[in-house]
């Protein structure tokens, strides 16, 4: 056998065919990469070569229910430097230094950092308009300006825990700033450029600016005016009683909207770093849990009435204690209230009476109503850090636990839970979810982007029973332990609470949480208000009726006046307590007459009032308070003087 030229030729052919096959394979591979999978690699390229400098969006404002701004972002630009794009760091630093100050070396050091982008801290952040303009005019390569506003609080400390605080990178940390963070933040924009492998802009390519989408404004259910009433009252309480904590909530019982939510201690969100974390982290109105004490009797009463276990006209004899499982549960009043109707039991906040109601109900029904009223579970309000409270596990409830629970001991609840339970009484029996956000508003079009409607959780009691409870609570204020909340004409209904705080497993003799929960007007409540004062330090004895009730009275009366609710004359009138309550007298009509005539009229009316004149002239054009208003004897009526009667419009 020989290797003939033919054999060589055959093998050359074979090699050539093999080459062609390999080339075919290569072409096939190119088809795969460049045609079939091209989009995949293009996406990779885009990731690879496009560098984004994020441009933060302007954060949305937080408004009150009337559209008043509570928090907004004041416009301020910050410098962003992209080090790899800066060809002459020293010159750039020099030019920047002339505008923003600081040291050239310091700025240059930042400009030469090995980072995709750096902020020129601290002087290059949140610049004013003139500096912004000057820097923009320089058109320095690698130097960009980005909007980085400063959160501003026109009302200082107001509603601080509700609004919440902002972290350094523009993210909400607490309160609405946290729960609504996504809505408020908007969407980041970008300055986008095409970069080489070192992050330097490739010459001849264009920067692209993708503008940020500003965050939406969040309109709260909070009413600035009512919030201010609440905070004013808290300040007064703090000045007078030096408590550890105070929390106050005002809500609209028909909608579940929270109109005011105030806490003490509070802080200015603009400088939250200077206060203790628990002050800005804890919104007491939803976080704090404690034994409610007597305000919880409302639940027991409503349950007993709904289950037809009692009628308010039934009689009850209180010897000063009630014996349960061998224990004597004492009434707060030594010697007891004696013989009384169940309406009196409620008015007097008589513990033995409520223990009996609890016994009549039995543990399953009572606890089922407690749960139906929303206790032992979060209300679901759109605020962070809510507690759910603690109830006895049903299998551990014996007669003693049943007894204490029925007058508000041995359960642990939050203020917001109590407000929502009271709202159910106020609105005719429906438990609502508390709302703190009213709607979202597009900052550019000023149109409502989303509304947060009221949400009914469940019906708890019938509207008839709710009305009965309301009238019982009205008489608590008019004739019982809630007297200090009475405001003539506003028909306030409510209940006091005084809970001892357990310290090291024993009830402390000095540490109380006094509270009052009220609503008005009792026939058709527009408002529910609740205050809890933790560890008040008064000179006299500690009772919810003396410390907490006036707070709710003031807040409800002022708020109703602000809402334009007219005082009514059909409500229960107040029982006069000799030596405690001031004697009240009705202001006569003194305007639209000469000053002398007014003085004579006042004398002749027999009311014991003093006159204070305002202005000059001999004709009374107006008076304050108006005719028909009741004020304490010895009070002052201001007469506004003029020279002639006002022209009738």
């Amino acid at each position: 056998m020989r290797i003939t030229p033919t054999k060589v030729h055959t093998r050359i052919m074979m090699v050539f065919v093999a080459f062609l096959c390999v080339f075919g394979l290569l072409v096939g591979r190119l088809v795969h990469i460049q045609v079939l999978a091209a989009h995949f690699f293009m996406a990779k390229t885009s990731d690879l070569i496009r560098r984004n400098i994020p441009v933060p969006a302007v954060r949305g404002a937080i408004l009150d229910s009337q559209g008043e701004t509570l928090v907004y972002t004041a416009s301020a630009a910050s410098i962003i430097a992209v080090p790899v794009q800066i060809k002459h760091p020293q010159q750039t630093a020099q030019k920047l230094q002339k505008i923003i100050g600081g040291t050239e070396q310091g700025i240059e050091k930042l400009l030469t950092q090995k980072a995709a982008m750096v902020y020129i801290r601290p002087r290059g952040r949140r610049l004013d308009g003139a500096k912004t303009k000057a820097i923009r005019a320089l058109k320095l390569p690698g130097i960009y300006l980005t909007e980085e506003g400063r959160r501003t609080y026109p009302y200082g400390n107001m509603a601080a825990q509700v609004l919440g605080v902002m972290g350094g990178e523009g993210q909400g940390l607490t309160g609405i700033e946290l729960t609504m963070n996504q809505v408020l933040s908007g969407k980041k924009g970008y300055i986008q450029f095409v970069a080489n492998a070192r992050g330097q802009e490739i010459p001849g390519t264009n920067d692209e600016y993708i503008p940020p989408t500003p965050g939406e404004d969040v309109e709260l259910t909070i009413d600035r005016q009512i919030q201010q009433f609440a905070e004013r009252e808290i300040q007064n309480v703090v000045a007078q009683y030096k408590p550890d904590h105070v929390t106050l909530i005002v809500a609209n019982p028909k909608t579940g909207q929270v109109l005011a939510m105030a806490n003490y201690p509070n802080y200015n969100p603009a400088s939250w770093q200077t206060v203790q974390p628990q002050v800005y982290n804890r919104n007491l109105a939803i976080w704090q849990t404690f034994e409610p004490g007597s305000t919880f009797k409302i639940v027991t009463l409503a349950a007993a009435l709904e289950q037809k276990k009692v009628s308010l006209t039934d009689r009850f004899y209180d010897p000063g204690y009630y014996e349960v499982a061998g224990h004597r549960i004492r009434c707060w009043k030594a010697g007891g209230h004696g013989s009384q109707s169940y309406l009196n039991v409620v008015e007097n906040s008589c513990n033995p009476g409520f223990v009996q109601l609890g016994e009549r109900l039995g543990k399953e029904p009572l606890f089922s109503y407690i749960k139906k009223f929303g206790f032992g579970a979060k209300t679901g309000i759109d605020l962070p850090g809510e507690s759910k409270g603690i109830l006895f596990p049903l299998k551990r409830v014996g007669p003693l636990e049943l007894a204490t629970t029925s007058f508000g001991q041995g359960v642990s609840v939050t203020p917001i839970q109590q407000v929502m339970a009271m709202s159910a009484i106020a609105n005719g029996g429906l438990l609502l979810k508390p709302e703190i956000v009213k709607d979202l508003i597009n900052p550019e079009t000023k149109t409502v982007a989303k509304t947060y409607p009221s949400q009914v959780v469940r019906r708890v009691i019938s509207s008839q029973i709710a009305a009965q409870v309301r009238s019982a609570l009205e008489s608590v204020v008019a004739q019982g332990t809630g007297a200090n909340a009475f405001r003539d004409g506003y028909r306030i209904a409510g209940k006091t609470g005084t809970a001892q705080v357990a310290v090291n497993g024993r009830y402390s003799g000095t540490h109380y949480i006094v509270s009052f929960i009220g609503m008005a007007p009792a026939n058709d409540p527009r408002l529910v208000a609740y205050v809890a004062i933790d560890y008040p330090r008064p000179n006299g004895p500690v009772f919810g009726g003396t410390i907490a009730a006036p707070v709710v009275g003031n807040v409800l009366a002022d708020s109703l006046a602000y809402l334009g609710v007219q005082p009514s004359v059909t409500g229960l009138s107040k029982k006069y307590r000799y030596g405690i309550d001031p004697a009240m007298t009705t202001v006569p009509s003194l305007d639209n007459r000469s000053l002398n005539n007014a003085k004579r009229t006042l004398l002749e009316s027999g009311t014991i009032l003093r006159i204070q004149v305002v202005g000059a002239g001999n004709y009374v054009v107006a008076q304050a308070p108006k005719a028909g208003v009741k004020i304490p004897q010895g009070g002052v009526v201001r007469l506004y003087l003029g020279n002639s009667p006002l022209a009738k419009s």
Partner: protein
Amino acid sequence: MRSQKAADLLIPLVTLCLLVIGVLMVHSASTVLSQERFHDAFYYFKRQVLFAVLGLLSMWFMSRLDYHLLQKYSRVIVIFCFLFLVLVLVPHVGQVRGGSRAWLGIGTFGIQPSEFAKFGLLIFFSSWFSQRPDRMLFFSKGLLPPLLVMSAAVLLIMLEPDLGQSAVIAGATMILIFIAGAPMKHLWSLVGTGTLAFAGLIAAAPYRLARVLSFLDPWKYPDTIGYHIIMSLVALGQGALLGSGIGGSTQKHLYLPEPQTDFIFAILAEELGFIGAVATLLLFALLIFRGMRTAWRAPDRFGSYLAAGLVSIIAVQVMINVGVVTGLLPVTGITLPFLSYGGSSLTLMLTAVGIIMNISRQAKAG
């Protein structure tokens, strides 16, 4: 001199086309890097033009020089090749570039002995096979000697180390042995031992293993060993069907290392698209076809073997280079003939074309 006919004109024509594309692509691919390194966007372009002119002169000269002279001096040539291969390994004599001691330097110009050895060995084998063609039928007399010579050369080149050149030399030698008529049973046993040897080489140096790993799954090592392949694939994908136009590559902006040499095909495919890439491959295919036709029609065995061997070098390099660029093969480091930047590579490739032209000129009719 024998009868002088006109050479196969398609061969220089196709070569010229590839050369023009290559010079343009070297320029486009290297501007950023040239600017970055030498503050002269035309640095690589100017040098490549110079190499091209030198290469074309050499091509013209070789097409006129009777290739039988190569047969006459084949022993001298191969001895010199080995001399240089040894010389380049001597520290201070051989220059290290890119991790390999593969250059004998004259200023900024360097020659790669392995490039010369590649062609020298093929000339030697063609001569040796054609002297007594029938000894290829015997393993020890026919197959073993050229294998030993080749192994010696590959061993020296692997000491540089240069895996790509070794692969090309081994590949082209095997093809030539096949064409020279070695029995299939010998070849199969060679394939077996060759595979084992290759595995051994890879096992000997961990970075080769890493390269193999990166080729299997580049996305797993995007920042290290998979980087080249990813950047290359991204360039191809970015080019898509029609390409981003001359100068429109983004991968040359320092993403793809050395875009003007081993990865020039990636930049070409990015700027000229699938169409341009396939057209380039077709030009190569045409050149290979005309080269093989020349081998087929050569007047004697030496011419036949030499043409086939030189064409095989071109073909193997194209296949390995494009295989690497498209992610089908591990990164080896081999130039794309006529297109990649590089003095030794370009001038010698053009010289080889000149030799093929001379063989075609002496072709038998039919």
